[in-house]
């Protein structure tokens, strides 16, 4: 759940009265763009990517214009620009026009929670406006601080002194940067980065820090984000329909975390526990359709819904339904297995049979009753299956599921289809 760019960033900074560059959204009229250029001398034209996309400048995805005509040309170029990060292609949904802020000094500032210090940490340099990874370690400072008292002026002052920052920027930064702690701590953020903050001369001649780019990450377990009344669809790009539907079930009782690994995978593996999730997804690789953690003793209704949704989206393409977890501590296996088996039975009732091989590996409270419940449903649906106890190595069970997938791919699926009275290509 990330936000980048000044379109929303400027609004967020306003909450704590932190100065920000002037920004116009994609709907800005030519008149407004013209006025902004008149006022600021030039504008930056930036594509709007949902999520936190960095290094746009390096990729030629930031335009600068000193007249309306070139601003509109840049708008046309960048409005639907595409940007590839790793395997993911992000598509722009409009542009912003940001008034240029002339300045001698550019500051980098961020707050995040550090696992090295187990505390919030401020990272600061007055050599900003560039990748901080490229800076020498002496040019940048990392300062942990106490979250109960927050980021205080003296912390900023000490940090700037230690950095040997020019004296004209110290006072304005000491005055303004602590405000950002309020934004970070009270609105559910887990990272906040302003780069650059440009030090613009103010009316009285002293410098004013003006945020010219904005990035933040929100903690999705923190309801404080609701205080910001951000648009509902701001984070939508992060999930496909399936993830969206599952994540609506997200409550603190029982996990319901999923991530689509391969839309064209053939093993559907609802996994229980964060550890099992890591292990199973690792071994299955691209055979897996989803990576999931449904542990945490989910109640019947929730487990049923999770399974119902998973089956709705992916059972048709699935060769192997693979239900796997370690030896549960607290998850009631009878409840979770009954819910999943019922969902499978109801899928067959409502949408018809589909060729399938089922592999299960699990231990924990009521494991035999749970396995028995699943067995009964599989027998009644005439689906071939193997159910392993917790004394079988989990990775071997994963390998077995892969073997079953290979068998299904090399003629097994047609045989199961025949058994179920379905056409071979089902």
């Amino acid at each position: 759940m990330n936000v980048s760019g000044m379109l929303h960033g400027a609004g967020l900074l306003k909450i704590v009265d932190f100065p920000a560059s002037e920004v116009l959204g994609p709907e800005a009229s030519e008149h407004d763009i013209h006025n902004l250029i008149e006022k600021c001398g030039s504008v930056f034209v930036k594509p709007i990517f949902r999520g936190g996309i960095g290094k746009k400048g390096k990729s030629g995805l930031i335009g600068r214009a000193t007249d309306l005509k070139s601003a509109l040309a840049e708008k046309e170029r960048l409005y639907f620009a595409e940007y590839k990060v790793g395997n993911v292609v992000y598509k722009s949904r409009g542009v912003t026009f940001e008034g240029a802020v002339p300045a001698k000094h550019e500051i980098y500032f961020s707050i995040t929670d550090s696992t090295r210090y187990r505390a919030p940490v401020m990272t600061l340099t007055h050599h900003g406006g560039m990748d901080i990874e490229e800076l020498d370690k002496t040019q940048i400072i990392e300062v942990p601080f106490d979250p109960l008292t927050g980021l205080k002026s003296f912390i900023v002052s000490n940090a700037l002194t230690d950095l040997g920052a020019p004296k004209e920027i110290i006072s304005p930064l000491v005055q303004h940067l602590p405000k950002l702690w309020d934004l970070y701590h009270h609105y559910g953020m887990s990272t906040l980065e302003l780069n650059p903050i440009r030090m613009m001369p103010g009316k009285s001649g002293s410098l004013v820090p003006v945020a010219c780019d904005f990035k933040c990450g929100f903690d999705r377990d923190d309801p404080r984000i609701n205080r910001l009344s951000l648009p509902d669809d701001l984070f939508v790009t992060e999930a496909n329909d399936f993830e969206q539907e599952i994540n609506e079930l997200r409550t603190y009782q029982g996990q319901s975390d999923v991530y689509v690994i391969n839309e064209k995978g053939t093993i559907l593996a609802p996994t229980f526990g964060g550890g099992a999730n890591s292990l199973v997804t690792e071994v299955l690789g691209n055979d897996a359709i989803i990576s999931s953690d449904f542990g945490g003793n989910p109640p019947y209704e929730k487990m049923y819904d999770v399974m119902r949704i998973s089956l709705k989206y992916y059972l048709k393409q699935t060769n192997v339904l693979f239900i796997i977890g370690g030896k549960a501590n607290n998850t009631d296996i009878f409840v979770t297995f009954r819910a999943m088996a019922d969902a499978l039975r109801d899928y067959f009732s409502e949408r018809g049979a589909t060729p399938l091989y089922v592999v299960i590996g699990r231990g924990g409270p009521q494991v035999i009753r749970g396995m028995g419940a699943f067995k009964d449903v599989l027998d009644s649906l005439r689906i071939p299956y193997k159910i392993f106890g917790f004394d079988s190595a989990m990775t071997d069970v994963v390998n077995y599921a892969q073997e079953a997938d290979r068998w299904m791919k090399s003629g097994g699926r047609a045989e199961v289809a025949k058994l179920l009275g379905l056409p071979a290509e089902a």
Partner: protein
Amino acid sequence: MRKPGIQEFKYYVGIRSLADIATREDRICVLNITGNESRTVTPVSHAYSGGNIVFGTSPGRRGQVVETPAGNIPVYNNVREGMEAGHKFNVGVVYLPPSAVRDGVAELIRINPDVEKVVIITEKISVHDSREIRALGQQRGVDIFGGNCLGVADSWNQVRIGGALGGDNPGETLRKGSIAIFSNSGNFTTTIANYLSIGGWGTTTLISSGKDIYINYAAPEFAYAMSNDERTKAAVMYSEPGGYYEHDVVFDKPVVACVVGRWKATLTRAVGHAGAIAGSGDDARAKEKWFMDKFGVSDLFTPENPVCSKKGAVVTNIAHIPQALTAVMKLNGVEKDFPPEGNLELKPWFGDNQGLKLSAALDIPVVKALAPYDLQIAELLKNVGAIFPRQSMKDCSGSSVMDPKTQVTKVNNISILDCSKQPLESNLCLALVRELNDENDNALYNLAVAAHVNLHNDPMLAAAEAAREAGNAPNTAISAAVALLGPKRADAARAAADSLTEIFAHSGLLTGDDEQAKVTPAAATAEQLATLLGSAPDAKAEAMLKAFDKRGAKSVFVKYLRSLKGHPTADAVLAALTTTVAWEPLMRKRISKLTVRNLPWYTKLFGMIIGASTEAKHHAAGSFCGVDNQEILDSWTVTQLAYISLLGERPTAASLLPLQVILGLIISNGVGTISSQGCKGAVSADGPESPERVQINKGMIGFLTHTGFAHGGNGYEGIQFLIENFKDTSLADASNPDQSIDLKKITTDFAIAFNKEKKQSKALGTGVRNIPGVNHPVFKGLPVNHDPRETYITEFFAERGEKNVFHDFYKTLVQSLYDNGVTSNVFCVNIDAVIAASLLKLLWPRYRNGQFSENLMEMAAFTAFLFGRMAGCAGEIDDHINRGRNMDTRTPASQCSHVS
């Protein structure tokens, strides 16, 4: 003031040795002890640890206790009250919801200065609160475990604190040994301990650290405490990507590190463990490298390439941990703690190829599970039929469900629209055995019900008659008879059903009609035989068996009865018939043994309700409604019996169909209907947790008393409306298409008159009457509206070439209402109109020739409703007996309101 911590750390750490993490001396306070998770986990922890929990809190629940095998744990509103009551503790365990955790930690450490350790089980705590919790612990000098962890345990001390390490039977997994476990995954803490014990290694202290961004008790503290724990010879550390906790750790004892999650480098957000998302330089590969550098090894350990040193090994597969540990310890000259208890090879506990030929790699034979699971499996396989978990069944049903969008109810997953195509006998069975009948089932069940409609000389008939004469509606009159069909009149047949089930339970019989099946029933005991055979021939049984042959029915159970030396009783024959119908669903565990046991009782009730609905004069010694008893047994269906009871004449195939359709449509309208609520309330009051005490006949009375002139009797409103419009016509037969009746004219006249009436009512401010059968709260608002149920039935009748003028009238009426400006769009004809039109079609000839008064028409409409609905309600009764809890339909006083 912060307590002084261990000097080696720049931050506060209080625990010097792993032996101090979970001790027998620790005394514990559990916050939100009555929460869902705590309620199941805490009693096990308390008993395992020798009763170490002194009290728990739950605001507003002071005075309650949490029952455990080691004695009750008192509950207080808050920590202060518990302490004021004299309890002392040094460890706090937090089960609060995420948003309350931070305040809970603050409460623990600010109210009680003696708190040394806090274990936070809750997951999904916001980072905001986690950073404050960390700071609170540091400020006050408290060691915190978690959040999002499963607590800590000590196999030597037999103590676990916080979560559910070791599951519901901790002793099985927490085996005393020499290995400490530190794991980012709670489940893997237990799974690794389990794998270790299979490989011959026991444990000392187990720590589930959690894997949020903030890990309070992390790898460096663990390494320090391990160094000071004499019991611990080595450790297993399970680490996931993200975070620098392991980076600078120095171990002075051997460690097997398991790092899992290379693939997570491609993730853009965490799944499951919030902190398991790498930033820069802390992904799985980086962590593998950190550990390899610490241990001085050049590669990962695998069975094929067992790279390790005296200092340790790195694996990426938890199944390799025991082997890696053994290899490392061998280099250190340390033997296993105990002989290995097995291996981790693939061992299927259950499996079925369903007759397919699998590859050799897949076709692994099912093996006997390790104890005690082998005994549990044996018990499970012995069990016949489904076992439903009990829960509150208030407003909840496993039998029926109504789709709020389509308003179509499904009974055991079959839509009532499909039920309308089934005869009543099949729908009665569907409600109870959860599947529709085949032909043989119908033959068996028709006979079973037919044997119970004639109530000649039975006090039940007299009761119904007396109640009718006292002016009661049909439901009340029938109730009087139903009251007499109590448990004692059903026990013999129920005992016979039990005997048959027990004798054939493990015979290999899969379907009850498979007379050729090679099965081996158990030898019947004398007690079982006594439930099946009488000392002398039973005339009713003989008549039923004769009819059984006449109908050409098949039943393994009837065949079995006949093979016994003796005289089967009529109750035994009844049980054999019903058990045959129920056998396949029982074997497939769709229904319980209890349902099969009670099926003869339901069957007697169905027969009796149909019988008691008609006047006593129609019950004679040798006939019912003028039809010879043996003929009824030999060939009549339940639907035909309902017809003759209702209308007093033999049906033809054409006249029977509309009744069948009506009965199918009304078997259920979901669990929210008053009739369902009535029968479920009756079951709930008897206490389904002691199913033997539930009076099924009383359940049926509950259904009957919860019908009436407004619910069930209202079908008559439609009939009245139709009569009003047709009484002045020449209509003789509603199914005759050659009518000279001008529906357009009748409906237009009505629409104009109604419009006038509506305007007058508006002018006077009085309410406008509804037209029965027209419009629906869901199916409205379109230019032309349809009730999908009505559409379905229309198509069904059209396919069969069935004509119904009353139905056509309704369809013309909605158009005329629109054409004449009465309605703003074309309203739908609803399902009630279909029922009224179908029923009136049946009754019309008798109304026309004066045989049926309007009063009798009303009674017939009401009784027809009862015939259909008794199927759905029997299903609800049986479902509630199987799943419900005692008094679960009760509404708490807090949800009731008062008016004065």
